[in-house]
């Protein structure tokens, strides 16, 4: 596990910065809830009458006056976008940086098989994503307790599980991209995360584009659907898992035989 440890050390600063930034925004959102709760009747009416914008963020199906309704929209966006950007960035860099930073010659001339290098790097990405999600989950629970609200465990677990799955799926796709790219991988990763996010907004606005929910992992993270159904959409998760698996398999097939320049 030498490479896992090495990658975790190398990614420590980025991990701490992203976790602190997302955690801070999550906590701020939660701490805003008691103040907004009193004014929620007006706010809910306002949010439910913004046409396509309301549907885009799923606010037509959620009661914004409840903690979980507020949490799934406000914190969901922070966790969804922030987590997706971190996961994409972390994964899309992990293989490509070796060539971009010219360290591949050092790493790949040691007696370590390429398959092991790919596996250890993938494990390092997963550890970072899971660790970040555990910290954010604990921070959310602590913040909800701090504002004196009861923790809606089932819904909270479901939301965090969905966002963690989203990040792992995006990371797996970006991991595949990372194996093919030398330069410009950061832009590709962040761009992919942003495109996936906006695909979900489009899918929410018009029924004709609803099929997009099966392409973007944000589709199965919709707070309104999760809370209403009490579970993740299995078909969407299966499609996402398949896309992630293709990313990982592509990474192994490409990087195991790639010419390193």
């Amino acid at each position, binding site marked *: 596990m*030498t*490479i896992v440890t*090495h990658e975790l050390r*190398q990614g420590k600063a980025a991990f701490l910065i992203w976790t602190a930034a997302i955690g801070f925004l999550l906590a701020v959102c939660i701490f805003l809830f008691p103040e907004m709760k009193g004014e929620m009747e007006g706010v809910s009416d306002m949010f439910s009458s913004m046409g396509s914008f309301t549907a885009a963020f799923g606010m037509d199906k959620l009661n914004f006056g409840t903690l979980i309704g507020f949490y799934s929209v406000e914190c969901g966006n922070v966790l969804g976008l922030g987590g997706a950007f971190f996961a994409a960035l972390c994964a899309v860099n992990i293989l490509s940086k070796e060539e971009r*930073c*010219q*360290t*591949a*010659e*050092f*790493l*790949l*001339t*040691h*007696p*370590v*098989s390429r398959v092991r290098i790919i596996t250890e790097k993938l494990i390092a990405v997963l550890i970072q994503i899971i660790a970040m999600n555990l910290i954010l989950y604990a921070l959310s629970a602590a913040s909800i307790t701090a504002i004196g609200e009861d923790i809606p465990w089932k819904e909270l677990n479901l939301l965090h599980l969905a966002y963690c799955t989203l990040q792992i799926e995006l990371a797996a796709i970006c991991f595949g991209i990372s194996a093919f790219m030398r330069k410009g991988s950061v832009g590709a990763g962040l761009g992919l995360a942003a495109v996936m996010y906006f695909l979900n907004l489009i899918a929410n606005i018009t029924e004709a584009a609803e099929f997009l929910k099966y392409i973007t992992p944000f589709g199965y993270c919709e707070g309104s659907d999760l809370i209403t159904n009490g579970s993740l959409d299995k078909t969407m998760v299966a499609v996402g898992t398949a896309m992630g698996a293709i990313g990982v398999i592509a990474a192994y097939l490409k990087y195991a*035989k790639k*010419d*390193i*320049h």
Partner: protein
Amino acid sequence: MEAIKTSSLTKYYGTSRGIDALNLSVREGEFFGFIGPNGAGKSTTIRTLTGLISPTSGSAQIFGKDIRTERETILKNIGYLPSEAVFYPGMKVKDILKLSAHMRKINCSKRAKELCERLQLDSSRKVDQLSFGNRKKVAIVCALQSNPKLLILDEPTGGLDPLIQREFFEILREQNRKGATIFLSSHVLSEIQRNCSRAAIIREGRIIVCDQVDALSKTNARRVTLHGSVALQGLDGIRDKTDGNGFTSFLYSGDMNLLLQTLAAGHITDLSISEPDLEEIFLHYYEKDGDKA
């Protein structure tokens, strides 16, 4: 046993030639020189041998093991020094050395410390703060600390001051005496001439000559330097001719009797005829018609 053996090893980058049907044989325990200018295929050969790139065709074995199928086993016995030493930012020298040792699953901290002392390398410094030469020293220690059976060195002395270069070659000679094979790729021909027993010259991706360094130098060509005036027109076999302030110098590989007759007919105040150095031999091989010494 042969430490390195390549048979018709070919690498094309798309349509560009890297190496073309390269045949090379380096015996175990040799101090072998690999000479060629930029773009001749030296680095492509090394990158293919170390598994960084896959050959387009042909084969190569290191200690009898195929580079395509037994890469990991082969790399256990190789210490590789790249021409440009680049490491992970933010890491200290000692951490880089430890990482390298851990990836080899060995503990060689004692040897690493000894090498750092001999090369005057401060292992507590961060690699980002090091000069090009000091980063090269880190790469040297990484390559040597595991006492590998084969050392592949690509332009190893770039950035090193003369004293460290001398110490570095002393370390290499010690390793060689202990049985290590050394494959030294360089365009500093004096390094090859001083240290290597055998050398190969690569041109446009092909080995054009491979022989003992002494034999390579023992060509029938001679460096002629004369002061005075002489008519050299009509004398075949003159190359690399330079005229200076009262002197003329040229490399001569023609009939020696004709040369002496021509010189005798002129007015010469001083004359020297010597064996050319390896640099001149190298240039000779790089001339279009210089396929034969």
